[in-house]
């Protein structure tokens, strides 16, 4: 359930995301999901990749600022209410705060995958394991 996510700092102007993702493409690293949080003149790009450690190295070598953050990744059925009932309600009840989150669809399956950055990783993980049981995926 815990996965390592990359966070990179980029200036908010044309061509910067291209520059970042090109570094990964050239290193043969596969991008699984990404999300951008922006604050007008700069942004942070969150990336899930198949080889996070290697990705961190190549991004830093290219002169960008990048770090690895542990986040939670869960799989839930792609149906109405699943996210609310299986993820949000249990976390809220346990008092776990979500700092940011994004979702993507797993290839050829009927499930959605959710990435969550939470303030209490241990508690968040335990809570979701309890709520999701066998649905929680390994990162």
């Amino acid at each position, binding site marked *: 359930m815990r996965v390592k996510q990359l966070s990179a*700092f980029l200036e908010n102007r044309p061509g910067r995301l291209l520059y970042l993702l090109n570094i990964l493409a050239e290193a043969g690293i596969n991008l699984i999901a990404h999300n951008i949080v922006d*604050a007008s003149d700069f942004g942070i790009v969150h990336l899930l990749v198949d080889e996070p450690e290697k990705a961190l190295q190549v991004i830093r070598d290219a*002169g*960008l600022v990048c770090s690895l953050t542990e986040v939670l990744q869960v799989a839930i059925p792609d149906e109405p209410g699943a996210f609310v009932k299986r993820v949000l309600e249990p976390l809220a009840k346990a008092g776990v705060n979500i700092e940011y989150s994004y979702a993507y669809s797993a290839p050829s399956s009927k499930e959605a995958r959710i990435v969550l950055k939470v303030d209490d990783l241990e508690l968040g993980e335990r809570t979701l394991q309890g709520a999701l049981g066998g649905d929680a995926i390994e990162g």
Partner: protein
Amino acid sequence: MIWNPERETMSRSELEALQLELLREQVAWAYENVPFYRQAFRARGLVPKDIRSLEDLQKIPFTRKSDFRDNYPFGLLAVPRREVIRIHASSGTTGKPTVVAYTREDLETWKEVCARNLVAAGITDEDTVQIAMGYGLFTGGLGWHYAAEHIGAAVVPTSSGHTKRQIMLIQDFETTVFCCTPSYAIYLAEQAEEMGVDLRETKLRIGIHGAEPWSEGMRKEIARRLGVDPIDTYGLSEVMGPGVSGECTYHSGLHINEDHFLVEIIDPQTEEPLPYGEQGELVITTLTKKALPLLRYRTGDITRLDPAPCACGRTMMRMERVSGRTDDMLIVRGVNVFPSQIETVLLQVEGVQPHYVIIVDRERGALDDLEIWVEVSEDIFSDDIGRLRDLQRQAEFEIREMLGISARVKLVEPHSIERSMGKSKRVIDRRDVY
């Protein structure tokens, strides 16, 4: 008209005799009352009576802005505190301001020298003078204020800002003279046009400007858009404030009040004096100051001198409009800004020494824009955008607290400053003013 013809039209030989007499008094005053000067003289084996001619001035060591910081706040004063009746301050090279103090006699002198500049600009007791220079610790507002009253003009002490109100008062009070920084004059014109007010149709006729660098192009633009004769003035708080020199209506340089300020031009590298007409750093020795006598003060301002009499009848030497600085001091919206101050704030906020560059820009018709680009390093990077924004806002807040003017802090990628600006440049001044 000439405010003090006896002094302002003296022959050079009479003036030099007066300067020598005053110089000897001022040197003795500084030596006897300021430990800083006594030590500096002793270190050179110098005593006041060694100063027998104006050339002997060169024996005296220089005073620098850093000496104000080292003697903060009152170490350079030559009088007991009870004789001080006014204290002003401007920003210093680091956190502590540069403090200047005045006795009653100093304020009289200040009023006199500023009055001469105002009269040389063509101002009379018929004028209404709106002073939009900052009142407060900054010397600009109060310096011109008392001088304008002294010559009998009606003073409207608006201080800086509140531009719409400034424009309304120019119309309603029939203001004839507007006193402000050159960049504010352009901003005023811009705002007036937006309000549908044509300043050329008001009673405005003279602009008194100074406190920041400007160009001939800006002078022409102010003349055209405000319908005024823009007058350049020069001063610095360490020496007095406004009143060191000012243009007459012939616009052929700024007449220096030489019976109060003895000037030299030196090569800032070799520190050797340069002849008239050569460009170099202006060095000022005060001749009549009581609270804060200054001997050979390095202004950091680049100019040249012309001792030839002027068509206006004044014999007081003229200096060219200041064409630059010898150090990295910036003047932004009339406020002195040193990169070292910004560095101090960033170090405090970020906890590490970041790579940064200071960018000053002046968009057409707008006030100076101060922007600080800070490279995001691994040390300050956070995956949480809120934390980065907080850093940004805190740095902006601290800079405003320290300088009194707002700046925009921009976070940029590592190495981007070097890439776009070239190596080790800390200041990019995009204003086309020198």
